[in-house]
């Protein structure tokens, strides 16, 4: 039986949030498997075009992880990004996309537990809001057909 699950794309900064996610792994904290992580050097590298493309290609929610203000490995990339992301949330809301689908979190390399909690929370939000129908309905030829994978030994 096919199972449809929410799709979350996360952009994590190498020095803080990606490391925090690594820590969740090292400490074996379990969380939902619906997130896919794209590594970037800094949250300041994240362009609104990424978020748009993620929604276009099937993401139900997008999460950006960065360093706490003052801790950015590159001085202030996270602060520049913070301004952009506020504007992006307004744009999403104005266009009729629930702004909760775009989440930004500060997660340090020591916050493995926070990362696990974040994933679970964002997955719940995506489930509560349901699949992002709008983009899927206009995605047209880009949406690949659902395919099944076979696990070995079956």
């Amino acid at each position, binding site marked *: 039986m096919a199972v449809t699950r929410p799709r979350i794309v996360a952009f994590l900064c190498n020095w803080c949030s990606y490391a925090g996610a690594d820590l969740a792994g090292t400490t074996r904290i379990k969380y939902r498997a619906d997130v896919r992580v794209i590594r970037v050097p800094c949250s300041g590298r994240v362009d609104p075009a990424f978020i748009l493309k993620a929604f276009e290609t099937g993401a139900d929610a997008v999460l950006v992880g960065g360093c706490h203000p003052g801790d950015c490995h590159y001085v202030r990339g996270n*602060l520049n990004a913070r301004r*952009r992301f506020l504007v992006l949330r307004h*744009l999403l809301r104005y*266009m009729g996309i629930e702004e909760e689908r775009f989440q930004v979190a500060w997660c340090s390399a020591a916050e493995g537990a926070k990362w696990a909690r974040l994933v679970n929370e964002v997955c719940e939000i995506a489930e509560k809001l349901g699949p992002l129908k709008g983009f899927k309905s206009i995605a047209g030829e880009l949406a690949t057909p659902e395919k099944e994978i076979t696990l070995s030994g079956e």
Partner: protein
Amino acid sequence: MASDAEAQLREKVKDLLARGKVKLVLGYGKRSGGGVRPLFTKLPDDAERLVWNDQCAPNLAGYLTREPCLGIMHGGGRVGIVAKGCDVRAIVGLVQEKQVKREAVHVIGLVCDGIAAGGSGAAGVPSKCLECEWHTPPMADDLIGDKAAVAPRAGDALADDKRIEGMTDEERWQFWTALFSRCIKCYACRQACPLCYCKECITEKSRPQWIAKSSTIRGNLAYHFIRAMHLAGRCIGCEECRRACPVGIPVDLLSRFLTRRVEEAFGYKPGRDPAEEPFFVTSKENDPDDFIR
């Protein structure tokens, strides 16, 4: 607007060109069939063809980043420009973003009540005139017109905004997709915008293709979405994009909405001060962050 403002304008431009203070003046001329069109005056006698009335909607600042103005300013010459308050804000934006040097532009400011209904090609009064704070253009090297005689146009500039804010998410999505379904990707909005001066737009980029080029809903939505993000906090609300759109989409709604949010959140208003830094290149420690987990 009195017609002696027009006479003063012609005198002033004639004088500036005769004395060689500027090599070219961008102004308005009569358009056959009614209304106005841009007029480039190079010789003092050309000044007689300039007009000034309540139909002078176009924002001429966009020409400052194109030839022949580029070549003139590069060669050390100066360009004069007939500018209303809204037009000056575009010039300020260009100076902030290092596209134009302030001293290379001679701003001939015209005191303006607002464009008349129908004067910009659309039925009503442009919404920018309903919220104008710049009836007397700032930063004018020469100022023409009577400050005291300004009779601003009345109306709710935010009517469209309020309508949209009052919709549900679903309704808003339907509204925008319906609106953008008309878009034919002619890019007239981009070409008309004085702050869209990139020689090669991100829309043209194929590797990677962030914005689908075709005029499907997906492609249209992506284009306007990114355009709004690129103009957020930069859009000065001149409505050239709306005027230019051949299929009547109020393209400016998105970028003006975002620019209002930028002002609320960061206290930054575009087109205010040429020495200010654009809002997206700086950040403050106490920028709003309650949306962050």
